[in-house]
């Protein structure tokens, strides 16, 4: 085993972009592999449920087209994790199309390994029946009744399937949903580097230059991994890492600054040290892996809830702002009466920006009330047509709704747009964000080889 390996994290998310200077500088030295993660549940369940990508195709194409040929020329494997953001089959296939398009345009030939991470609903049913599905990260108990509504259930696997793909000698590895760390820890673990350090480095690397100052998920990071330490350095000379900036990264979107959990086990950072070892480089030591006691697999799935339609309006009249509760009650009643012969399967929500919408009504309404407020009314129904109908009724009712001391008798709402209503498309919720106990379950995620450009 070589004593040291060096890799490039292209950027914090495929499609977020990176500086060409970073790429140039990173390529100035040897690189063992290039990784880029795309996975996130942050933008909500819509992307997983609908099979659409959070990042636009042209952005992904830009990020890959600059690096692909250079990497192939130098025989540096590229690993793409959680393709398309959510990493279900439609996301993976879209990124695969992008890669094929670049190959065709740049006349490239290479071996690609694709790993799908979709799981069958029959497995969910079996696992739920056997009591194998447990909450994680604060999720509620799994409701097996949601299985028929779940779209694109995926497993978030760790390093093993990526290691298997690397062993095929693939030039490009395109993975479905996987742990962010798996993208960057698979190669080092395969080469025998300590898993604790490899996973800690991976956790930092997966966000690109977010651990640097100025922080940037839209730029690259170079990691040098050794048997007893790793060093992170942004290849863009405009950025630098400091011990605090790197240590602080373990806070980001994490419930615990001293440890995190991966399928491989708990990564313990209680004894980690962060040392400035270059003008812009920080070296980390002391992180260890406490191996998992039992094998589990994280599952993600978004359940379909209906279609959304919204209307947006401003309210300036002070009596109207003071009576938004009364307006809402009146509108709900009017819609219920008028939609009765069409359906009763719809829901309405009133979001009062300026008053209490952003805080989700955790707090009492603003006092004093604002001079202006925005009213967003939302309808969710089983079809887009019914949602559109419900919002149309709600909007016209709200415009003319009576309330105490009403002086603005010609209309309550200032619509900034015509048309005033907007289709929001499908609505989902994360109903599956759980760990599956894997003991006795035979489930493998195998790479499939595709010869691109032949």
């Amino acid at each position: 085993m070589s004593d040291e390996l060096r890799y490039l994290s292209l950027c914090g998310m495929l499609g977020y972009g990176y500086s060409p200077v970073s790429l140039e500088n990173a390529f100035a030295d040897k690189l063992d592999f290039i990784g880029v993660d795309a996975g996130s549940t942050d933008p909500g369940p819509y992307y997983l449920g609908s099979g659409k990508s959070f990042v636009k195709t042209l952005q992904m194409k830009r990020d890959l087209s600059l690096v692909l040929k250079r990497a192939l020329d130098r025989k540096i494997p590229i690993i793409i994790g959680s393709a398309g953001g959510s990493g279900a089959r439609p996301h993976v296939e879209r990124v695969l199309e992008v890669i094929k398009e670049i190959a065709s345009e740049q006349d490239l030939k290479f071996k690609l390994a694709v790993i799908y991470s979709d799981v069958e609903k029959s497995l969910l049913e079996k696992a739920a029946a056997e009591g194998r599905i447990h909450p994680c990260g604060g999720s509620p108990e799994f409701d097996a009744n949601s299985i028929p509504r779940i779209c694109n259930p995926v497993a978030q696997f760790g390093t093993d399937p990526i290691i298997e793909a690397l062993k095929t000698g693939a030039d490009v590895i395109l993975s479905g949903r996987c742990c962010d760390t798996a993208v960057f820890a698979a190669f080092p673990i395969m080469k025998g580097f300590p898993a604790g350090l490899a996973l800690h480095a991976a956790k930092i690397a997966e966000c690109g230059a977010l651990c640097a100052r100025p922080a940037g998920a839209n730029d690259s990071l170079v990691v040098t991994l050794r048997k007893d330490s790793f060093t992170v350095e942004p290849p863009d000379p405009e950025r630098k890492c400091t011990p605090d900036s790197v240590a602080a990264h373990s806070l980001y979107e994490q419930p615990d600054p001293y440890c995190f959990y991966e399928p491989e086990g708990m990564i313990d950072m209680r004894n980690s040290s962060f040392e400035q070892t270059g003008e812009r480089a920080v070296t980390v030591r002391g992180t260890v892996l406490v191996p998992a006691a039992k094998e589990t697999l994280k599952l993600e799935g978004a359940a379909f809830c209906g279609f959304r339609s919204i209307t947006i309006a401003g309210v300036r009249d002070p009596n109207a702002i003071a009576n938004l509760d009364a307006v809402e009650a009146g509108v709900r009643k009017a819609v219920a009466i008028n939609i009765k012969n069409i359906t009763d399967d719809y829901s309405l929500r009133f979001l009062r920006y300026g008053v209490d919408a952003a805080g989700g009504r955790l707090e009492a309404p603003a006092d004093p009330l604002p001079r202006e407020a925005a009213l967003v009314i939302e309808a969710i129904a089983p079809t887009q047509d019914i949602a559109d109908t419900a919002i149309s009724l709600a909007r016209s009712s709200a415009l003319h709704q009576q309330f105490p001391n009403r002086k603005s008798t010609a209309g309550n709402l200032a619509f900034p747009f015509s048309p005033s209503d907007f289709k929001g498309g499908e609505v989902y919720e994360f109903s599956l964000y759980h760990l599956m106990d894997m003991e006795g379950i035979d489930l493998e995620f195998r790479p499939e080889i595709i010869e691109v450009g032949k």
Partner: protein
Amino acid sequence: MRIYDIAFVCRSKNAGPFQLTVDLMFKTREEFDRVLNSPRFVPETIAPLYRTTPDKVQIKVFERILTIKVVLPRLCGSGSPEDTDVYGSQQHFPLGDLDI
């Protein structure tokens, strides 16, 4: 004094779709200690602000960078029909208003 006025970073974000993390960063040890040691800065006070119970409020201290993390349950999953803040990035209030 409000926590929001003492901390130089007061931010919230999802920690997965079902949890929120509120991070409070301080410039000085005194400010950090003032909040951390306040009898009001305890799960019993914070829980009702977020409509949860004290056992579900975790306070984690990252002393090396004078940071306190408060982990809270979300009232509903990120992006679900009931949600009002998909990224959870404006949920540092009401905690920011807690008077220390």
